[in-house]
């Protein structure tokens, strides 16, 4: 089956997936060297989801993401330097050093944050959609969450409320088969997550999250339906993370064989192969993309290294609109 | 001992008793009790001071004879 996309678009998709992967690899390295601290959740293996979705959504749409959101932020347009600086905790980070890896924000890009309470971002997405609906804005709110979030009450409440009030939310479930270390079959009664939303009147579908082109098409179709009907929809993106849940994880809960099996479907490798066999791209293109990515990441690290620490005296800034003391 | 020397000694004894008088112009014929506000305790301590400095003993019945500085100078001069 051919990809049925233009060369330019193939290059765009590949470039963004490679950018994410190199950013994540560099992050792991800098974490080991203690430049980055706290929790660090890497997106390696899941790049096709973020890249496909972001390419499908419109610039004016709202994004609510999770704590594994470096890739979404990067493709959404937050500069790699600002992401890296945020992970460093520097003042020139995209959240001024107050958020870190799990809490990337950008008002300019309508990126309403990485949320680290599982399911906690969902009511917010519902509220953003409510605001748009009341203001008659033709906007979709794309709400990313993992399979673990479907266990939470807020998942069910949010589906119900969005359907009841007919709100333009696109629920995007990044099912990577593990809620941290608990396998899907051990945390949900019905492993077919897409069975759930129709009970609330929310149409649901699934797509192979390792296929960037399939993801892009599905998200495009779903988001435009949401926009047209002003009703919520649900899309499950079946994916897999190749790395541990976070850095300090001995991965006692899954076998190496299982990981290796999934790596055969590496979204970047498989896309490269298909694009090359379709003669959309060449090895030279890939080398150029890799070189650009390496340069971009090196510049991002430099940007982070050169960044200033926010003065500790300013710690209370942004707690309130005006300092209370 | 000249009259001036006696006067100077008596004055020193007086300001020992009443330090606040040191800055004041003490008129030689002023009444010590009425005008300089000395009481019997002050007079006694003055008499004790004079005794120590000049070895002149002033008995109680003679207190009336040292009512002013002038009187006291005369009294002491006669007994040195």
């Amino acid at each position, binding site marked *: 089956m051919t990809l049925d996309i233009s060369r330019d678009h193939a290059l765009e998709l590949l470039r963004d997936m490679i950018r994410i992967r190199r950013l994540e690899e560099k992050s792991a390295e800098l974490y080991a060297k203690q430049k980055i601290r706290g929790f660090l959740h890497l997106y390696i293996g899941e790049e096709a989801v973020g890249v496909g979705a972001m390419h499908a959504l419109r610039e004016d749409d*709202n994004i609510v993401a999770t704590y594994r959101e470096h890739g979404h932020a990067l493709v959404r347009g937050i500069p790699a330097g600002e992401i890296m600086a945020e992970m460093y905790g520097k003042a020139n*980070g*995209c*959240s*001024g*050093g*107050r*958020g870190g890896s799990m*809490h990337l*924000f*950008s*008002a300019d890009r309508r990126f*309403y*944050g990485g*949320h680290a*309470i599982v399911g*906690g971002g*969902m*009511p*917010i*997405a*519902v*509220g*953003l*959609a*409510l*605001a*748009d609906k*009341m*203001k008659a804005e033709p906007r979709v709110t794309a709400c990313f969450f993992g399979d673990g979030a479907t266990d939470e*009450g*807020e998942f069910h*409440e*949010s589906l*119900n*409320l969005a359907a*009841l*009030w007919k709100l333009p939310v696109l629920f995007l479930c990044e099912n990577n088969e593990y809620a941290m270390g608990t396998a899907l079959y051990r945390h949900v009664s019905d492993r077919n997550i897409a069975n759930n939303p129709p009970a609330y009147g929310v149409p649901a579908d699934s797509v192979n999250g390792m296929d960037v082109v399939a993801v892009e098409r599905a998200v495009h179709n779903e988001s435009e339906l949401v926009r047209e009907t002003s009703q919520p929809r649900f899309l499950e993106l079946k994916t897999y993370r190749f790395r541990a849940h976070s850095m300090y994880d001995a991965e006692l809960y899954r076998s190496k064989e299982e990981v290796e099996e999934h790596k055969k479907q590496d979204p970047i490798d498989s896309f490269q192969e298909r694009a090359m066999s379709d003669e959309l791209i060449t090895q030279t293109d890939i080398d150029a993309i890799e070189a650009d990515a390496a340069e971009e990441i090196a510049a991002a690290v430099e940007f982070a290294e050169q960044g200033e620490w926010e003065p500790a005296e300013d710690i209370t*800034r*942004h*707690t*309130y*609109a005006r300092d*209370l003391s | 001992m000249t009259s001036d020397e006696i006067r100077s000694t008596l004055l020193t004894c007086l300001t020992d008793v009443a330090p606040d008088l040191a800055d004041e112009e003490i008129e030689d014929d002023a009444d010590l009790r009425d005008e300089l506000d000395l009481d019997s305790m002050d007079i006694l301590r003055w008499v004790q001071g004079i005794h120590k400095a000049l070895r002149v003993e002033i008995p109680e019945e003679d207190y009336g004879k040292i009512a002013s500085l002038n009187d006291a100078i005369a009294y002491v001069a006669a007994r040195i």
Partner: protein
Amino acid sequence: MTTYRDAVRTALQTLLREDPRVFFMGEDVGRYGGPYAVSKGLLEEFGEDRVRDTPLCESTFVGAGIGAALGGMRPIVEVMTVNFSLLALDQVVNNAAVMRHMSGGQFEVPIAVRMATGGGKQIAAQHSHSLENWYAHVPGIKVLAPATVQDAHDMLLAAVEDPDPVFVFEHQMLYGIEGPLDIDSTPPSPWKAAIRRDGADVSLIAYGGSVHKALTAAVELEKEGVSAEVVDLRSLRPLDRDTIIGSVSRTHRAVVIDEAWKTGSLASEISAILAEDAFYELDAPVARVCTLEVPIPYAKHLEEAAIPQVDRIVEAAKRTVGDG
């Protein structure tokens, strides 16, 4: 004279009329007219779009309010009681309170959340607690406790106008009280405490429903020759340290009245403030009159025994002046 309930409704009407960004949602606020009849008639006046009955999902409708605020609206959310609001605490503490700071100042959450609090109606341990201090503990949000009819009106206007998340706690025994309401006056800052009664011997520091008990106690104390000043905190976060310290610097004695449990209460906080910043003004140990450390019981006599009453305030005040 206006009731507290009508004062809140008047404020809601004004807000809905004057600002198209404002909408009001909560459980039974529309058709039912509000569990405390605060919003009676609003649905009819403003329609389903702006007066929204929500499903029973505190976490999600408060969270949706936060999202709508992020999206440029000025939502007013009613939670039926503070006990129920615990279901929404995740959204309050993890989202509303942190959004501005965690995003480096890029996003703000101008939401106003109203809820009933306090005991006195014999509705037992799942509807009667005073948990304002849980909220007042959290930086990033603001907490108001209107005790008067005027404040019930003015503070809701201020809460909606404020760029930060504001939580307004209305004591459920106050909805029926009557008082003057001047909707044209310029209200005092909601973030400042008020001296409700001047006195010389002891400061009775209270908020919300307890303010009225403190005022009654002050009258009783006067009969016994003790002149009590009554401080109404009004804002629970930020706390108006200056007024608290100012009052105690005049009276040198303090009794803090708080319908929450004593342990870890706002009364504890105020006592600590006095120990920190008014230590050399204190002529007697600070006294606290709080709810006994039990779930609020149903039976009338037990409920009354549990929550602060006038006689306990009088007794505590007399103890501080060495007269009890």
